[in-house]
């Protein structure tokens, strides 16, 4: 295939073009049309699915791409599958596959890319597409003891608005157990647990008495079918959903959603809006990390630092409310910029609160490093090796504690992060303590970024008109506090959502939880859970 002139915008896209050339050289006959690209995303159309496993392996293992996820779209007469990969520092490769609707069997890529495991299970459960050679399908999003087989809610002919009356409750349903030794048993935990305030999810702790051999999470108790009910809504209404399905990282998710909408409309937000978005996103990260640190202290029953971190978090919630009128930063992002502007006095008030939180966190970290009994509980607990993290494509602070350097703010810049100086803290041990150190270090970086941005705010508009008058689809991405968030949006020419897909960091990372939770003592379970700091509702959507 002839070399194409650079179809993608951006400074660092050379890598992406080189990679495309390498793919064409090896798999050229399988690519049905010339690559098209725009704004850091390059689409390769494949002619048939058989090449997928080899091609995904080529991208993931030979070229070190990260796995973004799989997005399925149902059009009038065909499926459109998107296998998304990220080339660090360059941009996204979107392997596009168009298939007739009758095709309901696809080759599984799980043997090559383990991180695709849950994506394929979800698609099988919600679309009814079968993946050949996948080790375990079924009972994922739709829990088998209450849902019939054969219900495919994400299909277009399935109406989301009608309550599903034909539920069953199968009292004989049994979960899959792996440990079969004599004397072993499974201890169920959840879905309502954690001594009071915990998200709904279920664990099956398989144990032989003192030690837990395996802990498998069962998720999707909070599944609200956000992707399904977004279909048919206007972009403005779907934005409310993207903001409210995982409120502890509401700003990052609504930002990724807005970036996707802005890509479709080919709108660039004004520099002031981009800078303020960075400020707000970092404020959310700082607050989230303070909360995560409080949860880790609490899991080790160290009451004073847990309380002090909780005070820092609550003070940041209050500062957010004073600054932006909402404790969780709802109602700020809008396609085209921000809903309102902030004055310099407001920024200064915020900076005082941020400084206070940052210095309090630093003091807290110093004292925690001197608390030997606390460190004993974290060190060598819940270890995820670098190989495992790479294998399972772990993102966010968890990945970075296991030597995975991916941070979308640097790996594929958005909203002006590329021009800002900041570090991405990394650790290599992959244990609970490494994850705690990453949280502290990232909080410091966030505070620095907030200062930097607030100090150099350009004057100007914070919003431009973003009319969605043409049909289109685009990918938006943001580094949420828990890791990479990808939002895929397709709208028709009236601005109504046809397909919305949110790939969240918690969905990604829950897949890797079982690696950290292997062969441990019962009392370490809350600690492993807290150092992972994952959200069930962000995973479930």
């Amino acid at each position, binding site marked *: 295939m002839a070399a194409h002139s650079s179809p993608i915008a951006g400074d660092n896209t050379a890598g992406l073009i080189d990679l495309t050339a390498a793919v064409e050289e090896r798999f050229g006959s399988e690519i049905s049309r010339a690559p098209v690209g725009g704004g850091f995303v390059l689409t390769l159309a494949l002619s048939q699915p058989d090449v997928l496993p080899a091609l995904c392996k080529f991208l993931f293992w030979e070229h070190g791409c990260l796995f973004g996820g799989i997005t399925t779209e149902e059009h009038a007469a065909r499926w459109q599958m998107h296998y998304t990969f990220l080339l660090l520092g360059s941009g996204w490769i979107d392997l596009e596959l168009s298939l007739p609707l009758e095709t309901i069997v696809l080759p599984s890529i799980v043997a090559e890319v383990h991180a695709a495991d849950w994506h394929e299970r979800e698609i099988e459960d919600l679309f009814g597409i079968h993946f050949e050679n996948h080790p375990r399908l079924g009972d994922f999003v739709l*829990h088998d003891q*209450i849902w019939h087989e054969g219900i495919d*809610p994400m299909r277009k002919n*399935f109406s989301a*608005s*009608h*309550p*599903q009356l034909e*539920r069953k*409750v199968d009292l004989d349903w049994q979960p899959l157990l792996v440990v079969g030794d004599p004397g072993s048993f499974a201890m169920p935990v959840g879905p*309502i647990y*954690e001594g*009071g*305030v915990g*998200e*709904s999810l279920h664990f099956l702790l398989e144990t032989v008495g003192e030690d837990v051999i395996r802990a498998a999470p069962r998720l*999707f*108790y*909070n*599944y*609200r*079918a956000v992707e*399904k*009910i977004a279909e048919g809504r206007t972009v*403005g*209404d779907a934005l*409310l*959903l993207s903001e*409210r399905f*995982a*409120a*502890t990282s*509401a700003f990052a998710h609504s930002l990724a959603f807005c970036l996707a909408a802005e890509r479709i409309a080919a709108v660039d937000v004004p520099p002031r809006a981009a800078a303020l978005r960075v400020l707000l996103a970092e404020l959310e990260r700082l607050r989230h990390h303070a*909360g995560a640190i*409080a949860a880790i202290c609490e899991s080790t029953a*160290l009451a*004073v*630092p847990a*309380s*002090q971190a*909780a*005070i820092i*978090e*609550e003070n940041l*919630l*209050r500062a957010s*409310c*004073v600054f932006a*009128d*909402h*404790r*969780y930063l*709802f*109602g700020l992002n809008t396609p085209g910029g921000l*809903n309102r502007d902030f004055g310099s006095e407001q920024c200064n008030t915020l900076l005082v609160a941020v400084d206070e939180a940052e210095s309090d966190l630093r003091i807290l970290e110093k*004292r925690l490093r001197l*608390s*030997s009994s606390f460190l004993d509980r974290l060190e060598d607990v819940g270890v995820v090796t670098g190989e495992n993290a790479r294998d399972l494509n772990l993102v966010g602070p968890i990945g970075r504690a296991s030597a995975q350097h991916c941070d979308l703010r640097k790996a594929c810049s958005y909203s002006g992060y590329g021009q800002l100086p900041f570090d991405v803290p990394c650790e290599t041990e992959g244990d609970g303590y490494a994850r705690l150190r990453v949280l502290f270090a990232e909080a410091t970086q966030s505070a620095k970024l907030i200062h930097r941005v607030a100090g150099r705010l350009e004057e100007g508009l914070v919003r431009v008109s973003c009319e969605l008058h043409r049909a289109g689809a685009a990918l938006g991405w943001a580094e949420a506090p828990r890791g990479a968030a990808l939002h895929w949006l397709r709208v028709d020419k009236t601005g109504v959502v046809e397909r919305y897909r949110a790939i969240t960091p918690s969905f990604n990372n829950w897949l890797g939880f079982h690696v950290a939770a292997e062969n441990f003592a019962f009392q370490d379970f809350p600690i492993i859970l807290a150092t992972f700091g994952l959200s069930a*509702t*962000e995973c479930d959507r």
Partner: protein
Amino acid sequence: MSFWFWHGLRKGIQSTRYPGRAENTPGISPGRPMNTDFSSAEEARLAAEICPSDAIVAHGKSTYVDHGKCVNCQLCLHSLPSPMNWEPGFEWTRLPANRTESFPLPSAFAKSTHIMVVDAGDCGACLHEVKQLNNPLYNMHRLGFFLTATPRTADLLLVVGPVSENMRGPLLKTWEAMPTSRKVMAVGSCAISGGVFGRSFMCACGVGSVLPVDFEVPGDPPPPLAILHGLLVVAGRKSLKSLEPVSEGRS
């Protein structure tokens, strides 16, 4: 390790004085829109139109807000030429629409109320605000509110989230396992009306369609003190007359 003891003491008492004294530290509550009289019917119509969750109804020049539907998107505050009036505060606990009265717990429970929290499809915000009640700034223990992990010892079922289909069963089982006289409190707009999720094959449009709800705390999410006010109402230590000003020394 003993240094933690001193560091804890040195911080001093951080807890709010509410409900003994009024609390108005900035940032404790995002506030909410209130019924507004505009100067023209057109302005009222615009306010009703901009509301994505149909919480605002225009009637002539006036608008009325159903706070159980309000998702706090703040469009009616920041995106209108003439915005809705905004009320600060947090004492928002109310009765469900289908009730004319609810009784608090028997007085024996007033100073020691055990709460069972169930996340029935919550986005994390309401749950997080409930969690904040345990931090030193709110410290609900000082008022005799305790979280419990088992429904057998719970007096109050606090539900957040619109009731997802996969949580309907666990929620009902929890309620059935509670001893009478139990109370149910729906916290947050999703738990009251389904919020942005609405009615669908996966969402039950609020707790009221699954369980008898005694009290509601509107807000998306309601701030911690709004939930605390709800708890005080359930315990019979605050009255529901939300129109009266925050009274001092009544608890």
